[in-house]
């Protein structure tokens, strides 16, 4: 590991002021410290932001929640209001990593964790994300592609975003508050801060796979805002998160689904949200599936049709074709589970 300077920021303003080329923000460190040890991330300066952002979950007047970027994953997953009002979010968090890692990992860091693509993490391999222009080993004949993308990838990168939390936030229409350094202010408001809607924080790789998100250099996530919980009449709308992985616990998703389903009094789908993990460079909002279902009578056949609509344009790599059927079946199965 290359030597680096360390500074603890006391506020978001101080953190972005400290930021210079080659700096990284440190949350729980559960991904960043590993990447530094692997030589994937070689910072000149580490800015510890655990004391700069909130570590509390608070209720807003609207009924939504504000989640500080410094909230530890374990505290989010066990929070009574998250469990009661946003069960898909609690389930997503509880399905991520291990007890030890959830105790350290922060919400902001979870959103900004890097892909676990084997070629990104191996500095002896070409990787356009780690080393722009070096090539993508995942496109080579015989490459290990089983965990890689089937949707939205480019010839330059087929990495997947590994977060569970981000998939639920994408289905819940969360938004992310960001504080920007003064010189990145073109998109930020007058107070050098801005809101980014989810989906929309993460970006597809295209020709610039080194950029995971739309954040500009030095921008810092300070909190995540959840809209008031979706209702189904008087009751909360049914929602859940299901994750398929290679072992029962402590593994990244092969495919995961966050879904919400609300059937109106006319017996038709009034609200429907579906987001997928493990299939793309972003937590993938399944807009095509949602469009098929909105206003339609719900049924097993309708759910299968919606899943088919979403996966119709999947482009699996040699070796991860299984993910197409897995995602299709998982969407349909989770929606059936949500039927009243």
């Amino acid at each position, binding site marked *: *590991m290359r*030597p*680096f*300077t*360390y500074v*603890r920021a006391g506020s978001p303003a101080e953190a972005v002021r400290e930021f210079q080329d080659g700096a990284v923000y*440190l949350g*729980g*460190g*559960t991904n960043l*410290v*590993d990447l*530094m*040890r692997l030589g994937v991330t070689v910072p000149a300066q*580490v800015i*510890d932001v*655990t004391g700069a952002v909130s570590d509390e979950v608070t209720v807003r007047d609207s009924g939504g929640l504000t989640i500080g970027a410094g909230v530890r994953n*374990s505290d989010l*997953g*066990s929070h009574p209001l998250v*469990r*009661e009002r946003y*069960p898909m979010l*609690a*389930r997503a968090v*509880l*399905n991520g*990593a*291990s*007890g*030890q*890692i959830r*105790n*350290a990992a922060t919400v902001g860091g979870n959103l900004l964790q890097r892909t676990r693509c084997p070629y990104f993490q191996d500095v002896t391999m070409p990787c356009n994300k780690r080393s722009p222009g070096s090539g993508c080993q995942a496109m080579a004949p015989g490459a290990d592609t089983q965990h890689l993308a089937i949707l939205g990838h480019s010839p330059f990168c087929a990495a997947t975003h590994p977060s569970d939390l981000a998939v639920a936030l994408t289905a819940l229409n969360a938004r992310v508050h960001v504080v920007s350094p003064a010189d990145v202010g073109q998109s930020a408001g007058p107070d050098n801060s801005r809101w980014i809607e989810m989906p929309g924080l993460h970006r597809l790789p295209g020709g610039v796979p080194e950029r995971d998100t739309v954040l500009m250099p030095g921008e810092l996530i300070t909190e995540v805002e959840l809209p008031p919980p979706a209702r189904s009449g008087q009751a909360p709308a049914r929602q859940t998160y299901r994750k398929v992985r290679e072992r*029962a*616990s*402590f593994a990244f998703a092969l495919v995961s689904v966050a879904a919400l389903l609300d059937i109106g009094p006319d017996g038709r789908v009034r609200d429907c949200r579906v987001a997928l993990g493990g299939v793309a460079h972003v937590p993938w909002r399944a807009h095509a599936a949602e469009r098929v279902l909105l206003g339609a009578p719900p049924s097993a056949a309708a759910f299968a049709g919606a899943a088919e609509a979403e996966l119709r344009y999947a482009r699996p790599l040699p070796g991860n074709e299984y993910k197409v059927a897995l995602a299709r079946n998982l969407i349909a199965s989770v929606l059936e589970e949500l039927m009243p």
Partner: protein
Amino acid sequence: MDSAYATDITMTVNGEPRAVRVDNRMSVLDLLRERLGLTGPKKGCDHGQCGACTVLAGGRRVNACLALAVAHDGASIQTIEGLGQPDDLHPLQRAFLRHDAFQCGYCTPGQLCSAVGMLTEPGPSAVTADLATEPPLTPGEIRERMSGNLCRCGAYVNIVAAIAAEVPKSATGAGA
């Protein structure tokens, strides 16, 4: 070490205040093992995947290999050495002996610290059916909650039995 790349920190380790100058790159695990002589926490994978390095930081279990020492200035750390003594074992240590919950023993300090932390953690887990409940710590719940600790000897069956034996009666779901 250039002073720009090192930091003076203080840490309470097993109840004793310690003051050390650390290379900013140093993990809590390396600090404990290489500088403070506490070799109970083990270096297994050094990537947060095996749990052999598990210690309690402020009472919460964490992977010491993924924790930068410099980021734990002021922290209170407890290792297996602070959990029990040879003549005064922690109840969980006694349960591990009683249930034959280890073979080579390399993962055991991490298993024990993890179990101590786990038993204090509130709320549901990934295998809890009803999120609204504080679920009883059944063997299935224990397995899920302990999935951050690997055992290459495969002593899992007895590890779960040992931990289950130390679950407070109020949290087993039995009786009451």
